[in-house]
């Protein structure tokens, strides 16, 4: 009856292949309409790469422009269900970067893990399959941005900040919804293309990590010394955005009781960045730099040249900050889809006690956030302060355990599937005529697999432990974004310096700034 009937009845392997063909065909259908950044015709010079990096970075930061159609200072009026995770993904409330890098990161992890763990039978040796694989990631990124934006609009996330719209009396502002949708999805689309410009070798590092680093760096400065003054919700006070500038301003009062109150407020305020988060950030930077230095040096020797000895370093942070990033990608996706589910079920009048199993949100009077009070979502969310963490110990333990398990599992898998596992490294050694001193060629893989997975897992564990320490103390994602940012910055800097040394001083920049 059906031509493919005989194919479906077979071993599971054939069945998997059958699904693969269908999936890749689906991607193929979109190929002609998706924009594709060209590869450079000739080698990109060092100077051009610097210009591309800086230019795309600045354009990316332009995304902090407020969305057209929202009231002024919308970021303080939106009631936010994702307040505790959004900094990690460069998601800026009420701006074009509402989704930040979340669609691209989620799409990348889904595809690369699916292929690495052999859920999909893609043969990456074939250029054709690789092309479809990458187009699949791009398509998924676009698709996810549409889903997230539609979900946010449907759940009424923007309702109380749309210009001239009254939730109680007006009919649905479909025109404004369309405007908001086009802006967020459009900017997400351009962000993905900018990432592609990075990844194709026009700029340094990977697009995702470079943008995350940039966003984190600007945010740390803004959180510390931001000078804008914003009115607080449910109060008649206005406060300075930056934590330090707010503290300094409080010293203008000489009344001791007011001063004491102001200082306590500087550490605990919840609508604007506070000093606790700042200290967590600083400590995280220092610890990451400290951890970055740990490595095992494997003595290597050349198999071709006599007495050419060297060491091959294997870092403790072998997988960098990717396990931490992966963990939070999973958590934020659970949170965001959970939020959508709760708002859909509420709209269809499902009984509140059933919805509370998933999650129940509560808006405290002193903050503009949806805070979880119970449900599955509550147990995998962080706390806003150390007191809150201690008051709900079960939740803290569940959250910590969940994160650690995800992170170590990922690092253990990733060090094999990222193409830098023991086998790949020993192949690299063989190609370059390198051998471990005092070992035979055959046992290189064995020797490396004694070191690499252990380094990856313990490195991932120490980073996630650092991240969670910050979270328990009330870092609200700031510490995590710093950890991802700093360790990515190290990777990017490494690539930058390598490239700089290889140009051999032929750079206009180095001759212009060399005399400084």
């Amino acid at each position: 009856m059906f031509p493919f009937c005989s194919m479906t009845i077979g071993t599971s392997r054939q069945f998997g292949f059958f699904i693969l063909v269908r999936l890749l065909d689906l991607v193929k259908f979109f190929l002609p309409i998706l924009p594709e950044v060209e590869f450079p015709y000739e080698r990109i010079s060092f100077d051009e790469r610097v210009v591309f990096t800086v230019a795309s970075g600045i354009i990316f930061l332009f995304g902090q422009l407020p969305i057209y159609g929202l009231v002024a200072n919308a970021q303080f009026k939106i009631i936010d269900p994702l307040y505790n995770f959004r900094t990690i993904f460069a998601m800026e409330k009420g701006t074009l970067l509402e989704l930040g890098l979340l669609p691209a990161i989620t799409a990348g992890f889904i595809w690369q893990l699916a292929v690495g763990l052999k859920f999909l039978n893609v043969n990456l040796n074939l250029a054709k399959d690789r092309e479809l694989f990458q187009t699949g990631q791009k398509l998924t990124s676009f698709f996810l941005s549409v889903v997230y934006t539609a979900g946010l609009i449907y759940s009424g996330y923007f309702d109380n900040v749309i210009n001239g719209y009254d939730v109680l009396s007006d009919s649905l502002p479909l025109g404004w919804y369309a405007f908001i949708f086009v802006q967020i999805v459009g900017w997400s689309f351009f962000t993905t293309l900018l990432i592609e410009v990075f990844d194709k070798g026009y700029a340094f590092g990977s697009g995702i990590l470079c943008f995350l680093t940039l966003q984190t760096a600007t945010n740390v400065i803004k959180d510390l010394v931001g000078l804008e003054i914003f009115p607080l919700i449910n109060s008649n006070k206005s406060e300075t955005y930056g934590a330090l500038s707010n503290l300094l301003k409080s010293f203008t009062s000489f009344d001791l009781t007011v001063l004491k109150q102001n200082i306590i407020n500087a550490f605990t305020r919840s609508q604007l960045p506070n000093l606790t988060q700042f200290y967590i950030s600083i400590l995280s930077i220092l610890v990451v730099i400290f951890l970055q230095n740990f490595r095992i040096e494997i003595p290597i020797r050349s198999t071709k040249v006599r007495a050419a000895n060297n060491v091959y370093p294997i870092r403790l942070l072998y997988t960098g900050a990717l396990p931490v990033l992966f963990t939070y990608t999973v958590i934020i996706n659970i949170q965001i889809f959970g939020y959508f589910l709760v708002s859909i079920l509420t709209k269809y009048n499902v009984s509140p006690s059933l919805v509370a199993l998933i999650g129940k949100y509560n808006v405290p009077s002193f903050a503009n956030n949806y805070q979880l009070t119970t449900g599955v979502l509550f147990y995998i969310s962080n706390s806003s302060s150390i007191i809150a963490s201690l008051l709900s110990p079960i939740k803290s333990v569940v959250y910590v355990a969940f994160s650690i398990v995800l992170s170590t599992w990922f690092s253990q898998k990733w060090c094999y599937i990222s193409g830098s596992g023991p086998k790949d490294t020993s192949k690299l050694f063989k190609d370059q005529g390198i051998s471990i001193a005092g070992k035979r060629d055959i046992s290189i893989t064995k020797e490396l697999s004694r070191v690499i997975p252990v380094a990856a897992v313990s490195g991932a564990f120490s980073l996630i432990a650092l991240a969670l320490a910050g979270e328990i103390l009330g870092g609200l994602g700031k510490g995590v974004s710093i950890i991802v940012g700093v360790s990515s910055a190290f990777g990017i800097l490494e690539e930058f310096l390598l490239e700089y040394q290889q140009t051999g001083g032929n750079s206009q920049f180095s001759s212009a700034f060399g005399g400084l």
Partner: protein
Amino acid sequence: MSSSSAQAPGGLRSVAKRKATADKKAQSSSATPLSTRSAGAGGSSSTMMKLFTDEAQGLRVDPLVVLFLAVGFIFSVIILHVFAKITGKFT
């Protein structure tokens, strides 16, 4: 029957061993790479996450075009904001 008689004599056992190694070798040589990097095409490394490695058939654009289009998008949003401010003043 005792277990010792179930075991094949030495010769056969080494044949079985040889077959196991051959199978293992064939499996490892026919195994497809797990990532674009292990296929030798760049992409995500252990610390860097990259999405795009190849040039697919599609609407090919220059990177500069992407940058200019992105700037154009930003400017269209800015212009919308400016218009809203201006019309808001007069009405």
